[in-house]
């Protein structure tokens, strides 16, 4: 075959070059993405720019067929090992002492949203309000999507200052973000921040949640461990 042997093996070199670029992209891609986000950020919600990767916005995950709607008689139930089980509407929750904080949302797969404003009631405040029994060491949280669950120990709730949030990004939590009520756990990966929250049970020990059952690490600390200096 005369023609096949002719010419330089550019094809192979191109493949090797692309592999090299890919490796560079994986190692330095986060910094590049930050630059891209700065450029795309202001135009993200206008037309095509919103479709490009990494405008710095949320990726709105759901594990069921779409974003669930709350049942008509929606309320948040707090039960389990407590003296006074609670049934709270969103306005009941808004009447409780509010905690406001601005913190980043970090997905375990790598994307993040900086400086998100959250308003809600701290999970440990809620436990105190319901009169949690000393034997209760963890929260078991369930979504009204009927599938998603998460859990958090009471120590973790204290260390993180986890919130049952009714407001994020300066407005009531929208349906796609997990409204009317969702959890936000600062310092932990996003999968801990259960959306469409409807039930909180105080239990003796934590039970792995939805993604943890599907291989995600139970240790969801972004830094790999609880903050060493921060105390509740």
């Amino acid at each position, binding site marked *: 075959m005369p*023609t096949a042997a002719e010419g330089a093996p550019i094809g192979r070199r191109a*493949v090797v070059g692309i592999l090299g670029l890919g490796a560079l992209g*994986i190692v330095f891609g986060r910094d590049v993405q930050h630059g891209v986000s700065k450029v795309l950020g202001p135009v993200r919600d206008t037309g095509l720019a919103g479709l490009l*990767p990494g405008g710095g916005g949320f990726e709105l*995950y759901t594990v069921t067929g779409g974003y669930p709607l709350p049942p008509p008689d929606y309320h948040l139930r707090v039960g389990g090992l407590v003296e006074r089980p609670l049934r709270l509407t969103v306005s009941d929750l808004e009447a409780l002492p509010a905690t406001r904080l601005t913190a980043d949302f*970090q997905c375990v*797969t*790598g994307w993040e949203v900086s400086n998100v404003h959250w308003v809600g009631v701290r999970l440990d405040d809620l436990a105190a309000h319901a009169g949690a029994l000393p034997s209760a060491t963890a929260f078991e949280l369930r979504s009204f999507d009927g599938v998603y669950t998460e859990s958090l120990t009471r120590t973790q709730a204290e260390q993180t200052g986890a919130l049952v949030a009714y407001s994020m990004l300066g407005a009531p939590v929208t349906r796609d973000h997990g409204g009317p009520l969702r959890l936000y756990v600062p310092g932990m990966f996003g999968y801990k921040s259960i959306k469409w929250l409807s039930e909180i049970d105080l239990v003796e020990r934590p039970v792995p949640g939805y993604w943890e059952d599907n291989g995600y690490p139970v240790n969801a600390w972004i830094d790999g461990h609880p903050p060493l200096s921060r105390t509740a």
Partner: protein
Amino acid sequence: MSAGHTPPAATDTRTDAGVLRFDRIERMLHWVNATLFAVLVLTGAALYFTPLMALVGRRLLVEEIHLGAGLALPVPFLVAVAGRWGRGLRRDLSRLNRWTEPDRRWFRALPQPRSVRRHTRAALRLGKFNAGQKLNAAFTAGGGLVMLASGCMLHWFTPFPLSWRAGATFVHNWLALVFFLVIIGHVSLALRDREALWSMVRGRISRAWARTHAPAWLDEVDAEGPSAVAGRSVEE
């Protein structure tokens, strides 16, 4: 060089049978890959594109299908290229790998107006693949491996530092966009040349087509003689 002229009568009798462009293994590999790519594009869109995500949901299931199709992608290629049956494929890969002076000139013709470009390229006497097809092959091979690696990092993320996971997300998302555009280009070019498209189904292509688009390859096929061609067509 006389692409547009009527060939002598002796050649005309061979026109009907045409020449074998892709053997059965190559055609099967192409369509298996095309199916896997379609699955990857559709599930990838449902995982990435927010409005579609809202419609489809079921993240875990969609993720598993996407991952399965991605991991499966190299398998048909490896099976096709490895065996005795992979002769035609291996030979075409070697053709795609080698770049010659006409390939450079093919690219240099890009800025020319379409009518001029056609003449410039016809004069190049190209082999079986033009430079665009060679570039597409190199991109698909290299880019596919990068997608596979970054995709695996996104699924089995625990060993990797967070900044690498973010980097893998960056690479996977942007490269997916490039792949999407390249696939659109590939399909629209195929739809513009129905005969070439059909040869990926039937295997054979007319001598007239080969004389216009791949004259050096046609010479090569003819030089190998009718016995070689017949031998390949028995394999059909």
